[in-house]
């Protein structure tokens, strides 16, 4: 579908490959035409145009062209793991702008595709709009109209249904389950103010507990709820959050880890960090996101407890994406590569006795369309509510897509030491497997995902490891999993993106 021509944007001198691209924009596919030239303005133009529904090959990505590599650079990064900054809202609009290299102009002509597969998504989107906007229109004054014109909304969901079969030395078990399901709504005004909400499902009874709701039903709870304000600067922006906010460390590393469906980061699954907490945070992101600094002040009790003590957790997170400093971002097999260096320190306390709960963590990540590599290390001074218990963990992962793009392999290794004062107190987990992206490749470039994992896990622990010291065999497990990782994202936005 690639063709050569002149960029339709007035005054743009770009000549070269003009290629229709399918982009996800407001929840259903959009079509764009992009033009690359060696010089020109740094603006991105999003101008609607019509789409020919009779086009027999509407999806350019089905016919990969040499320009595919460049197309991905237009799309939000860290699409798999969502945070308000990296996954969308106005955060990824800014990121979108950043990713347009200043040495070439890119002109996009965007239009929606009138196909039949997006009806479900539209129903969701329009049902929200038809509730919200009629209320607005009912008594809209000119001022209010102006306000609502700058409003943008986003709906997201993340669901991981799975089937597990586990073999332990003296028992085996298999079950279907939904081990994570999240529904989110973001609403923002003119990219400066907004609110973000997430609800998640979980079993009403803890493991070993018989005290659930209607047996052990799934229930919903608030996972995150925060308001934010953002101030744009010449080199970036600064954002303040207030409410039930995501942990800044997880928020920094998650976008660079794309196998959450399989297992959360060791930082989270190893009980080192809580996914969200009540508090406030300030985030500063500059130089196209190459430098990010976050400072958070939170209760320290996590998601399911109110504050127990007067101390507050102070967390500082530094993220560097050094390749963004380069004029020409390097590519790997034709795809943009992102290298991330992340580090954090937390001065924390937990529980009514203010048990120390400090953390030091660092991570190195490399992400691209075809390959993800990462390693993280966490050191805990105070763990599991024991002030004098030190623990640490290291996790490494690799994901690689095969040439066909829609199939790939992965492996991950976790090693957690539950008591550094004792020898033989570690537990290990190895996960290997294959995955297949069931959605078309063009959608995967955005925040949509429909990925099927087939995984094998092997878990072992040493003799001094909790929960059953002295009986390491009890934790020696073989597990086979079939897991579906579904991400869906629907956005509505009236205003053009702000460009930095």
């Amino acid at each position, binding site marked *: 579908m690639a063709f050569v021509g002149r960029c339709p944007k007035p005054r743009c001198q770009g000549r070269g490959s003009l290629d229709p691209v399918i982009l996800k924009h407001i929840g259903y596919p959009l079509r764009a035409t992009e033009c690359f030239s060696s010089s020109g303005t740094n603006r991105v133009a999003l101008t609607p145009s019509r789409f020919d529904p009779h086009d027999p090959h509407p999806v350019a990505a089905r016919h990969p062209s040499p320009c595919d590599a460049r197309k991905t650079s237009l799309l939000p990064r860290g699409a798999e793991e969502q945070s308000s900054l990296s996954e969308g809202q106005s955060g990824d609009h800014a990121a979108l702008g950043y990713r347009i290299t200043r040495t070439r102009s890119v002109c996009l002509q965007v239009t929606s595709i009138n196909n039949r597969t997006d009806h479900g998504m539209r129903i969701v989107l329009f049902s929200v709009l038809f509730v919200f906007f009629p209320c607005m229109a009912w008594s809209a004054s000119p001022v209010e109209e102006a306000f609502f014109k700058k409003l943008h909304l986003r709906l997201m969901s993340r669901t991981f249904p799975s089937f597990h079969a*586990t073999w*332990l*030395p*003296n*028992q*085996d*078990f298999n079950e279907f389950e939904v081990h994570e399901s999240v529904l989110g709504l973001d609403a923002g005004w003119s990219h400066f103010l907004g609110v973000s909400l997430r609800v998640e499902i979980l079993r009403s009874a*803890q*493991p*070993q*507990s*018989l*005290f659930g709701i*209607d047996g052990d039903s799934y229930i919903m709870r608030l996972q995150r709820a925060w308001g934010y304000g953002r*101030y744009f*600067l*010449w*080199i*970036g922006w*600064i954002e*303040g959050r207030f409410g039930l906010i995501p942990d800044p460390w997880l928020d920094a590393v998650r976008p660079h880890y794309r196998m959450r469906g399989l297992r959360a980061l060791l930082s989270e699954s190893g009980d080192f960090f809580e996914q969200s907490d009540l508090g406030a945070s*300030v985030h500063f992101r*500059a130089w196209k996101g190459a430098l990010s600094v976050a400072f958070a*002040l939170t209760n320290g009790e996590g998601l399911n407890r*109110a504050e127990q003590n*007067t*101390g*507050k*957790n*102070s967390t500082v997170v530094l993220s560097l994406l050094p390749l963004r400093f380069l004029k020409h971002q390097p590519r790997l097999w034709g795809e943009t590569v992102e290298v991330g260096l992340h580090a954090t320190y937390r*001065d*924390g*306390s937990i*529980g*009514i*006795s*203010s*048990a*120390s709960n400090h953390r030091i963590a660092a991570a190195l990540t490399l992400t691209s369309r075809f390959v993800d590599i990462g390693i993280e290390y966490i050191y805990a001074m105070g763990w*599991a*509510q*024991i*002030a*004098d*218990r030190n623990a640490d963990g290291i996790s490494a992962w690799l994901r690689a897509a095969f040439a066909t793009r829609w199939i790939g392999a992965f492996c991950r290794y976790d090693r957690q030491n*539950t*008591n550094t004062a*004792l020898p033989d*107190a570690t537990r290990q987990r190895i996960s290997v497997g294959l995955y297949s992206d069931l959605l078309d490749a063009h959608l995967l470039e955005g925040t949509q995902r429909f990925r099927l994992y087939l995984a094998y896990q092997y878990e072992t622990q040493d003799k*001094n*490891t*909790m*929960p*059953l*010291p002295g*009986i390491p*065999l*009890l*934790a*020696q497990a073989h597990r086979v999993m079939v897991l579906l990782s579904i991400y869906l994202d629907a956005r509505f936005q009236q205003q053009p993106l702000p460009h930095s």
Partner: protein
Amino acid sequence: MMYSCFFYPPAFLRRRLCCLLLFASITSTGCSGSTPSPREAYIRQLLIEDNWMLLRRPSEPIEGQHRKLTEEKLRLMAQDLYAYFRGSVIIYLRDQTMLSGDTTPTAFGSAESGYISAVIDPHPENIGTYYATDGTLRIDFNDFDASMYAPFLFDVRRLILGYWIAAQSIGITEREKAAQDQIASSIAGAYFDEIMRLKAGGPPYKPRRDGTQSTVVEDLWNRAKRDGDANEDLLEYTRIEGNQRVMFHGTVEADSNGIIQDRTGPIDAEEQRLLREVLRTYPLTLSEPKRFSEGFFTWKAASQRFGAGVSSYPRLRYYILVEGPSKALEDDILLEVKEIAEPPALPGFVLFPKQTFRDNAERVVWMQKHLQEDTQNDPYLGFVALSPMVFRIRQRTKYQKNFSVARFREKYSEKKWSTEDLLAFSIEAGRLLARSHALAPTLQGEKGLSSIASTLENKRDAFVQEQRAFINAYGPRTYNDFLSLRNMLDTYGPSLGYRAAPWRF
């Protein structure tokens, strides 16, 4: 141009940032205050976690009662070492699973013996008598509130710790300290021997009142027979007014140091409605419901009981008087309805399936029926779930009498009983525990005997030695924890500084 590359916020933003940073620095200093020792902080946290639901429970059904009673429970634990031991099973279990510095990991764990039916809280005061339906007096473990599937060693060590604490509590003399050191050996050895005897095809240990048991057990049986025959429970908790029996509301045993010992009180209309519902559905869960005639469980009266137990001290407990086999006042039956809570959580302990029982009362009753000699111990044993609360029901009778450390202390000070009697009793307890573990089904369904026997086989000395090492390290630690609790109550107040979350809009 260079200047513009650096971030220099406008004035209003600078001011706001400064305020924010100032606020952050002020509030974050709250982390570093006067910090207690890590162990003390850990105990405090666990005790609050264990009582959290009671401390924050709303004022149902009796206003303010739960928090007050929970504070009394903590005070009771701080007054008496044995009471502390009874109320701190969560600390014991966490120490076993988290492996604190001086806890000894076992060399006697196996995958096969990791999920046996466990009492979880076996200790001397949870051993008591029963008057079975076959007319025999028996002795058995009688508290299964925390019971669950777990490694058998959790129970063995808890039992050893219980006797060690009991010996400490009775004020054992220096001269007899050696006897205290023998407790671990006697219990571990008795447990081992009983398992091996059963493995060899021997009959299960079923102690009977034939004069061959220890002084302590014989004393229990004698008193149970005397008080049970006298229907003393009806005398204490009921009165006859005119031609009907009514509940007694008042003090049965005087309070001690502000702790309720034995007191009953009236119930309100809501509680009566709840208890009538309990009585309506409970007979369906009896082992042999057909043994009771129609009208047997006819409601007569009810009262609330205060001051029983340690762990369950603040929990709801009621007595219901029912008609019994005839309309005569002498054969009325007193049932105890006790609220059952969750067992202590063992983080990271994986069970398949995760929930074997529908509710906690079913768990407790099922475990009791399988860990005791048989279901004849208490024919009135049953349960009721009135979501979200669950209750276990049993007969309240003086035929059921528990061992009492206080009584042993009294006898010991009178020089009527000695540490030898305690050792003899501990051996009986070790055998009882072995029988319970061996004959009850494991999570996988088969009896626990073969898996435990294969784990222990031919290693008696090593097994005994390991348990001695455990109690030598963990016994003094428990004593120090008890002293810590006293300090903490002085420092943080009656609820250990727990603050209920304020009402929010």
